């Protein structure tokens, strides 16, 4: 990687590249929160037959969040007398860091050089793991506030997030299973072409898995109807009861950041990622060499696609929040353990059977997956094709030689060797 004429090993080049990445990622969280808070106010207003903010910044009140932010900065930063100072101060940053860190591994456009800060080979696993860390900020805040309400909120959140990680993991494994890779770039590229290639439409099982994933994602980022940790009718404001000013707004930004990242993940895993419903970039020929203008344009359109889908996901979350009443804590746990987990497990099994019986069918079995995406679905598919090729070659060789009785056996064993060898050659993934 290099930035312009600065080589990657020079001090300036490396630091500059790092700073650009950091600035972009922080901007996604911070600007995203700015937009989403405004959006939430507008959407909640419309749902409740109000107008929402209308004054600050012109017609739609689009600068309202900025005004709120200024107000928050000028507010007094309170800390309860009995609080554990260090933990109380550090808790919002723990939440915020976890929310940012998830964006490290999320690609915004695909191809050989994806728009990603860091292309992690086990991308989805990493993102889910980091998203799970956000709960620590909540627990620390709840404990250190020296308030019963905070502690109750934190305990609820801890129990909830840990339980909901199980069905989320199972649902996320379904696309991984179909693609054959944990790499988010592969998973997104696999769904190129028409919207019929999107994994949500791949088969009935992925379709249901998507909805289960979305429900559980809603719960894991503590949005209504699962926002028991901050249930204002019971717990004042839950784990952030004692927080005020800028620290409180860090919790808020973390919440919106993780909402956006789980929506991004849903878009990449199920909704085609950076591929639009129609392959417009391909039709326009915007798939040039890396670094050319057409590549930049194509990738930018891809990123816009992805961000649009994720924003739509966030809007749906807001819609749900202002429509459904809050569940009780036992109902939340029952939803996870009695419904989401068994359904997710069943969908996982169903997807396995589907993949086994109808490996190349998609769109609920109505059409064939385009052959171009086989290459993306690395792993077994590719190994099998190679092994069959080698088997054919071997058979040709052996046909030339004399016939032997255990011909099939030798072919089988040599094919197995070839599989192991090709996997080794490709470094596995």
């Amino acid at each position, binding site marked *: 990687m290099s930035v312009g004429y600065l080589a990657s*090993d020079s001090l300036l080049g490396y630091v500059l590249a790092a700073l650009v990445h950091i600035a972009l990622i922080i901007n996604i969280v911070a600007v995203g929160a700015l937009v989403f808070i405004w959006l939430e106010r507008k959407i909640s207003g419309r749902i409740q037959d109000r107008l929402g903010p209308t004054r600050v910044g012109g017609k739609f009140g689009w600068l309202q969040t900025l005004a709120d932010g200024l107000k928050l900065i000028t507010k007094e930063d309170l800390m309860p007398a*009995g609080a554990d100072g260090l933990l109380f101060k550090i808790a919002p940053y723990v939440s915020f860091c976890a929310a940012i860190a998830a964006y490290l591994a999320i690609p915004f456009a695909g191809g050989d050089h994806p728009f990603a800060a860091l292309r992690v080979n086990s991308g989805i696993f990493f993102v889910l793991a980091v998203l799970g860390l956000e709960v620590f900020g909540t627990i620390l805040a709840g404990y250190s506030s*020296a308030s019963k309400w905070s*502690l109750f909120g934190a305990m609820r959140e801890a129990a909830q997030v840990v339980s909901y990680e199980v069905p989320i993991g199972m649902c996320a494994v379904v696309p991984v299973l179909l693609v054959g890779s944990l790499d988010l770039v592969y998973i997104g590229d696999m769904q190129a072409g028409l919207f019929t290639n999107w994994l949500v439409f791949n088969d009935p099982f992925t379709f249901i898995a998507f909805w289960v994933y979305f429900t559980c994602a809603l719960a894991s980022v503590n949005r209504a109807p699962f926002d028991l940790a901050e249930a204002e009718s019971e717990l004042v404001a839950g784990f952030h009861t004692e927080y005020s000013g800028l620290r409180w707004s860090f919790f808020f930004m973390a919440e919106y950041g993780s909402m956006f990242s789980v929506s991004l993940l849903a878009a990449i895993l199920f909704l085609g990622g950076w591929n639009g419903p129609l392959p417009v970039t391909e039709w326009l020929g915007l798939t040039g060499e890396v670094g050319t203008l057409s590549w930049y344009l194509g990738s930018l359109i891809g990123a816009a696609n992805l961000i649009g889908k994720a924003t739509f996901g966030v809007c749906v979350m807001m819609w749900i929040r202002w429509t459904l009443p809050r569940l009780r804590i036992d109902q939340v746990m029952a939803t996870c353990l009695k419904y989401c987990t068994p359904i997710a497990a069943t969908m996982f099994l169903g997807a396995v059977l589907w993949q086994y019986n109808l490996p190349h069918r998609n769109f609920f079995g109505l059409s064939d997956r385009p052959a171009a995406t086989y290459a993306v679905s690395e792993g077994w598919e590719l190994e099998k094709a190679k092994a069959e090729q080698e088997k054919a070659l071997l058979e040709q060789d052996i046909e030339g030689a004399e016939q032997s009785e255990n011909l099939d056996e030798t072919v089988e064993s040599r094919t197995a060797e070839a599989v*192991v060898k090709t996997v080794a050659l490709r470094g596995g993934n």
Partner: protein
Amino acid sequence: MDAIYWPSFFFLLFGLLACGFAVAVLLATNIVRMAFYLIMSLSATSGLFFLAGADFVGAMQLMIYVGGTLVLLIFGVMLTSQERFVEMKTMAGDWIFGFLAGGALLVTLCWVAFSVPAWRGIDRAAAEQLQVEPTVAPLAMGLLGARTDEGGEHGYLLFFEIVSVHLLVVLVGAAYLARAKISRGTAAERTSHVEPGAALPK
């Protein structure tokens, strides 16, 4: 001065974080602070795993260790942290004896680490030729009993199965163990244990 070799820089960063917070766990007296330092130390360790080219294990560390085991631990802390248990001082004699033994152990281990020349790392020129290889598929194949790196079939399938069943049995057993006794206690005991204000810092 030579250009900075960035992996080394990040090793220093994560290594210092891991060691520093490990020492903080040792020196802290407040059990909740200890839990927090432990989280930081183990997260930094996962950074070290990434640096060593083990990205899957690093993510696993974050997911299971930091996201699972430590949440469990913190639950334990919160359930038992009555005022008198939050701060528990260690006796001075324990400290002196501990530091003598621990210091000796640490010096020995470090001396061993640097006594083998091959362990000191590779040349910079050779390091820059290295390509980072993905580890997910080889690990998965290894767990399923086929080795892609060395060939052959001396994988870990049986061990994998045993560990899975073991984990299941252990979790069921732990749930039973923690649950059975609570229901046997008297009502007065039970209410005294779930006193919500008891876990708050003073």
